């Protein structure tokens, strides 16, 4: 028996592999966590079975992140053009003043329709170790500012 003449080139077909890899890349790109400006990831939320997903028809949603000390942490979107000290609301009076400004802004955006602004979805993302009095102070501040629809955020079990 004689060896085959000339060197035979053995090339694996890489195209299906490339297709597969690109599909995986696409998957991870789509699932990647886009930076949610209004949500603070340092806050550890409590768990609840009855927690419902966000209403898709809700138009104006306001997130308020409350840390373990009961301070409201404002996101970059909320305090554009302001200093770092303006990022935290420390008591009910500060919350009320800030929310009143937002409420007036919402009324202006709704062409003076106060009822529409009142129905904005206010979502409080309070840390699970925050004492109730601190969370209640935030709720009360929002209520005194004019908002009516308040919900607590939790991780769905």
């Amino acid at each position: 028996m004689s060896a085959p003449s000339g060197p035979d080139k053995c090339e694996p077909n890489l195209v299906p592999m490339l297709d597969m890899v690109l599909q995986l890349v696409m998957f991870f790109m789509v699932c990647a966590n886009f930076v949610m400006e209004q949500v603070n990831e340092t806050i550890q939320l409590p768990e609840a079975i009855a927690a419902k997903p966000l209403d898709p028809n809700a138009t104006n949603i306001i997130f308020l992140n409350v840390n373990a000390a009961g301070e409201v942490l404002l996101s970059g979107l909320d305090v554009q053009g302001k200093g770092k000290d303006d990022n935290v609301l420390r008591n009910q009076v500060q919350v009320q003043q800030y929310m009143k400004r937002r409420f007036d802004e919402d009324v202006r955006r709704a062409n003076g329709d106060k009822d529409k602004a009142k129905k904005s979805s206010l979502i409080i993302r309070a840390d699970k170790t925050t004492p109730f009095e601190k969370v209640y102070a935030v709720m009360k501040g929002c209520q005194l500012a004019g908002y009516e629809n308040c919900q607590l955020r939790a991780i769905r079990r």
Partner: protein
Amino acid sequence: MSKKHKPSTDFVEPDLPITPMLDMSFQLMAFFIFTFRPAPTEGQIAMSLPKQEGGESAIPSPTDEKPEVYVVRVEAASNGTISRIQLTKKDDIDTRPVELGADIAAYQKELQTRYAAIQGDKTKAKVTLEIQENLLQDYVVQLLDNGLRSGFTNIAPVPLDPKKR
């Protein structure tokens, strides 16, 4: 006019270098795998805000049917956990509270019984949670969660101290 013939060419197979593209794709994939962190699914717990003193909302309408109000008094231990739960029905002749200890399951069972007694009429029922100020948010959410799962939809958490409401 003479007919022009195209010059005949040998068939050349285009050689597209796949390997560098595959390398790049692997790098991209590695990047996304390492930075991939699935976010936990979050949801909302519905609740009612306490009524404001005075103003329009405080004026009762003559056509309004009075709802049955259950008052749940929740006391907290110094570490922020539940130490005692009591349930009373507002405007009831029997004013003695039902003692539920520190057991959330017992609280849920009691609420389920009460809800069944009013034949599941959501408009008739209201739960007011009077919570001690130092109770942790984790337990507040558990109380709201169990209340909602019992069938009640109108649940309002308020501080135990009436002056702070």
